[in-house]
């Protein structure tokens, strides 16, 4: 395959900040991205992830900080001078141009000779498996095909960095899974660095080499998908990574990482201390790990049950009115009393009110 990314060693964000009036949308983001890396910017809506991507693309200017590509400072360059490929959320295909002209647009702008453009458009369309659709207008293609054209257009210029802004959010569930695999394959093929914005943790976990979790414009955690899934460093990151149960409690006993917490139930809850400072703590457990057990420390009343194929997932209310999400293999009636518990190694404990 002849398409490859332009060579560079690393992209460095150095205290990248952006304000909108008095609102700090991005606060001092620092990150180093190696060539070939796939980085996911993950966070809830309004966390600043799209702002970060637009700053990288040059569509927004920085309020403070700098962006470096190797030894070259690029945050002062206009978007057309950066040469990054960008895939937009709504694809932003040029509706009046054929698929081929869309894909070749970047090459045409940089003055590549016609024959060379034709060859590289062929290659880019080949990479996204759309060779037969070249003559059509974008409006004649399905959503998934438009998505592929958008990717082909971004990679045809062989950019050092490919930026993707929630590119799968407009596709249906099945197509999303297919395109996920495609994006991963294309990324490997190019050898470029990819920065991928998403609010979907599954997407980030399955695609990225490293995930950057953003919240309120700040980096909360940077780590591999495995790190992030197993051991989120803060309570808010844990919540975002699927630890839906957050029970406030009081620290009873601590020995290194081993910790016991009193949450107002009959027994104490045993777990792993991740980020504990004072006596008041929050216990975080994934719904899949909280299951009925004979000696479970948490007594609750079932309020709802939902069948998901591999198991039932239910909601329950604890004594203090705490909302609980749990998994069960056997159906339970609404109103039934249940004792719930989770393995200590999958019960994470954080300082209470430690968000921010």
């Amino acid at each position, binding site marked *: 395959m002849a398409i490859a990314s332009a060579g560079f060693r690393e992209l460095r964000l150095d205290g990248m900040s952006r304000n909108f009036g008095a609102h700090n949308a991005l606060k001092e983001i620092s990150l180093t991205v190696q060539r070939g890396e796939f980085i996911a910017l993950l966070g809830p809506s309004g966390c600043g992830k799209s702002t970060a991507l637009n700053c990288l*693309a040059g*569509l927004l200017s920085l309020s403070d900080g700098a962006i470096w590509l190797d030894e070259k400072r690029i945050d002062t360059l206009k978007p*057309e001078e950066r*040469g990054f*490929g960008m895939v937009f959320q709504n694809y932003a295909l040029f*509706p009046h141009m054929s698929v081929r002209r869309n894909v070749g647009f970047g090459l045409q702008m940089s003055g590549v000779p016609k024959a060379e453009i034709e060859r590289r458009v062929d290659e880019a369309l080949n990479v996204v498996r759309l060779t037969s659709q070249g003559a059509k207008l974008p409006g004649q293609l399905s959503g998934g095909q*438009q998505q592929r054209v958008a990717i082909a257009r971004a990679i045809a210029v062989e950019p050092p960095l490919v930026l993707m802004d929630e590119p799968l959010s407009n596709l249906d569930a099945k197509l999303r899974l297919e395109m996920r695999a495609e994006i991963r394959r294309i990324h490997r093929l190019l050898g470029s660095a990819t920065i991928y914005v998403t609010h979907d943790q599954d997407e980030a976990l399955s695609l990225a080499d490293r995930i950057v979790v953003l919240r309120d414009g700040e980096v909360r955690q940077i780590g591999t998908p495995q790190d992030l899934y197993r051991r989120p460093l803060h309570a808010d990151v844990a919540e975002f990574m699927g630890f839906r149960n957050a029970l406030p409690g009081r620290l009873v006993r601590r020995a290194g990482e081993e910790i016991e917490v009193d949450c107002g139930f009959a027994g104490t809850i045993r777990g792993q201390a991740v980020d504990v400072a004072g006596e008041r703590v929050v216990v975080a457990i994934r719904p899949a790990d909280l299951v009925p057990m004979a000696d479970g420390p948490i007594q609750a009343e079932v309020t709802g049950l939902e069948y998901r194929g591999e198991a039932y997932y239910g909601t329950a209310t604890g004594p203090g009115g705490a909302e609980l999400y749990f998994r069960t293999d056997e159906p339970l009636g609404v109103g039934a009393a249940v004792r719930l518990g989770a393995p200590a190694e999958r019960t994470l404990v954080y300082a209470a009110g430690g968000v921010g």
Partner: protein
Amino acid sequence: MSADRRPRRRTLADRGIDGVTLLLLPAALFVVLLFVYPFVYGLLLSFAPKEGGWLGNYSKFFSDPYMYGTIWLTLRLALPVTLLNIALSVPVAMQVRHMKRQRLLTTILVLPITLGTVLVAEGLLNYLGPQGWLNRTLILIGLIDHPIRLVHNYWGVFISLVITGFPFTFLLTLSMISGIDPALEQAAATLGARARSRFRHIVLPLIVPGLAVTFCLAFVDAFSVFPSAVMLGAPAGETRVISFAAAQAAFEQYDYSYASAIAMIMAVVQFGFVGLVLTARGLFYKGPVGGGKG
């Protein structure tokens, strides 16, 4: 339970007739009475000249340079004015679309439409006349020695047509340009297109069909210029526009038949240009100007 298996009664909608569309009938009747009927009446009248055969009026018009020259005189005003207005509207609209105080500016620009041609013409007579502010100011600051002649000639009509025509083309152009998804230009920028190329390759091709329609509307409006040609121009000379010739025939010579013929010639010229432009428009992309789904 009754065993009534008859299908539901077929409604108008089932037969492809939209009942609501029928509400158009009174309006259609109105158009027929107020437009089609006078038009047909005028057309027939034009073939019944006071003297000569049934084409007498038309041969009279095209054998008199003073008459057929009005077509050229009118075109000489209407075409440059329309093109200039469009050429001005596009860059102004490109700037205005990102402005926060768009409403205020739009209101100011639209004001000339609401004033009407006569009021604008009167204002210009005072402002641009030999003793008007403009000439006095220019003399005062020493730029000129003698007043420059800007009224009662071609330029007087030209300026008034630009002023009254611009808001119209501007508003249409602004709505077209605002309709283009900003992501398209951003995408073009990330692909290396500078502002100039973005305009040439993205914005312009997407608004050309709309500009063609704008041209037609503005051109027809300018071609039928009457009040400002009389008030600000030289109706006996270089701004003897075709509508003025028709008015003279009707109200000075009381030859309604001849006036009708002139009006028909006017219509044919307008239809000709509109047809030409709309045919050319067919060569361009006319679909939605969004960037894709969502």
